[in-house]
């Protein structure tokens, strides 16, 4: 959707004819990649434990669940919308699974299936309300977020009289479901969690959808210029509703990984994480205004987040200042990112 103007040093088309280096700087994720490299080198120098197999497994693990969500949220943001209910969705899906498996005695696979249907229904509802009313998704999903938070606590207390559900390990089908969502992959000393594999696979899938399919073009179109997209026949409603279902689906994946790995879930989990997902997507080159960004970038944004979060602990800095360090690191990454974004814009013009 960029307007191509002729200047002496810019290529005619977005990428064709540009040198490979220039083409690299045109990528939305280039800034994030450099930020990630900086954070990685920084902590590798400060503490040798950061690069040990166990250390790498720790920060990959931390990045993975955030990354799964960030990638889905990035697609939604490129489509021009927000989903504030994404954080609690990770807890809601885990609670549905756990309540059905533990308290109703269902097979874990059926419980997972029902919680998937529940997640997709909430996602579709979000999208449908946003498209029908024209209200900002910020407001609509804030409502869903609060409603889910209340449901999480209310239903959990009603059924169990406590605020957490545990005991999934004893349920039917736990072993096989656990293999899919919560097993560990042993590479030498490092134990990679299944969530890391999910993260990589879903990132690849999202990247392919975004740049290789017609649906991907629709995402950019509805996020960049909705009226024009509609005018040229892009099914805007369907696209956006599917994107909301996408974040809900990612919430289900993360919720399932969590419940099967930790075998218990608290009613207040996930609150506040929705902002982390948005941060990771923005660090990865997504614009808050929509129409620009990348799935790979969001995954790298999550990687920066995870590396910083665990790196601070490895570096043995006083935990009182933890959030300050995290904030400064993220800001630094965003600033690096921004510089390159500006460069890319210039080249593009």
């Amino acid at each position, binding site marked *: 959707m960029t307007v191509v103007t002729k200047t002496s040093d810019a290529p005619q088309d977005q990428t064709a004819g540009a040198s490979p280096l220039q083409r690299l700087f045109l990528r939305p994720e280039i800034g994030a990649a450099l930020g990630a490299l900086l954070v990685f080198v920084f902590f590798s120098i400060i503490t040798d434990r950061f690069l040990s197999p166990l250390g790498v497994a720790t920060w990959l693990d*931390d990045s993975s669940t955030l990354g799964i969500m960030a990638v889905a949220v990035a697609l939604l943001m490129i489509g021009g919308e927000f989903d504030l209910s994404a954080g609690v969705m990770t807890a809601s899906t885990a609670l549905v699974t756990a309540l059905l498996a533990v308290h109703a005695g269902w097979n874990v696979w059926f419980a997972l299936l029902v919680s998937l249907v529940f997640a997709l229904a909430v996602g579709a509802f979000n999208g449908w309300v946003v498209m029908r009313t024209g209200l900002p998704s910020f407001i609509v999903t804030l409502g869903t977020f609060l409603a889910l938070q209340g449901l999480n606590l209310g239903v959990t207390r009603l059924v169990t009289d406590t605020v957490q559900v*545990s005991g999934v390990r004893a349920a039917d089908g736990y*072993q096989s479901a656990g*293999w899919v969502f919560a097993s560990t*992959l042993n590479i030498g000393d490092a134990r990679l969690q299944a969530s890391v594999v999910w993260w990589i696979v879903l990132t690849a899938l999202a990247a392919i959808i975004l740049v290789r399919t017609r649906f991907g073009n629709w995402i950019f179109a509805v996020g960049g210029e909705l009226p024009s997209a509609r005018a040229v026949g892009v099914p805007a409603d369907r696209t956006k509703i599917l994107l909301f279902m996408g974040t809900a689906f990612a919430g289900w994946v993360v919720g399932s990984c969590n419940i099967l790995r930790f075998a218990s879930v608290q009613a207040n989990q996930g609150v506040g994480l929705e902002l982390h997902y948005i941060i990771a997507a923005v660090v990865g080159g997504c614009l808050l205004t929509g129409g620009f960004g*990348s799935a790979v970038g969001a995954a790298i944004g999550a990687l920066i987040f995870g*590396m910083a979060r665990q790196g601070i602990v490895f570096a043995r800095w006083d935990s009182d200042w933890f959030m300050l360090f995290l904030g400064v690191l993220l800001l630094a990454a965003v600033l690096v990112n921004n510089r390159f974004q500006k460069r890319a814009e210039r080249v593009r013009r």
Partner: protein
Amino acid sequence: MSSRPQRGATAWWRRQGRLLPWVAAAALLAACSGPGTDAPAPAPTPVAAGRLESVAVVTHGSPGDAFWNVVKNGAEAAGKDLGVRVEYNASGDPGQQAKLIDNAVAQGVDGLVVSMANPEALRPSLEKAVAAGIPVVTINSGEAESAKFGAFAHVGQSESLAGQAAGKRLADAGRGKMLCVIHEAGNVGASERCGGATKAFGNATTLQVDINNPTDVQSRIKGALEADHSIDSVLTLTSQIAARAVDAVHEARSAATVATFDLNSDVVEAIRAGKLLFAVDQQQYEQGYLPIVLLQLYRANLNTVGGGAPVQTGPGFVDKSNVDAVAALVAQGTR
């Protein structure tokens, strides 16, 4: 790994995209171990006697929480007194807490102190730590699971017993209906305290508030008192909420008695002024300090403490009779 997929990322994915899921699936099947823990809990392996150099303390307190600040002070004071490097980290999210434990194991600490608000979630990480030969002491919550997961000691206060003691004291004070204020949705200890208090007291209702929003706390307690005039006692589960409850009782012009768990300077002042009947004190400074001592004894001499039973730090009571002696200690962040 961290920065490989950046070179022409999308083009690269484009080429690899179709293959990747299969490669991942094959890799998964190749070297995989099942979910969670299928093996029985490992017995704690005695570590060769030696010096205790570093201890990681991983709790579920949110940063800036007054209660956990005292625990942290206790752990750091013990570290100073014994010449041990103590690293304190905390996260209220069980998943994050598990990752902090993994992090401590990756760092190769000599001892681990963990509070288990959500024991099941920490189990795999804790068992990994025990298997790696790191002695573990659990604190504050999770005493039932402590030994099962391979920790060699637990230091804390039994929440339901403490709750019963508080409920009994309010009943002895001749109160007829209690309002128990729960401040965190996911906090199991809080539920146990209310459960214990209700069991010993009898006629009680609970009220859910959000500790991160003081205005909301005060107005909800006020609303509950105005809605039901038969409530003549309010039990709060943490010191931050106690001060709000005292104000709410005052604003609602209710004659209800307020009592609380845990101390801070506001609670001390309120007890002095007669606005609070008592505070249940679990002396959490000991929950920070003692584990470092226990780990030191275990490392140096393979000693254990408690004979398999949890080491109880509470409940103690602070009321008008002893509040003056405790006040100075609260001000310095050790009570």
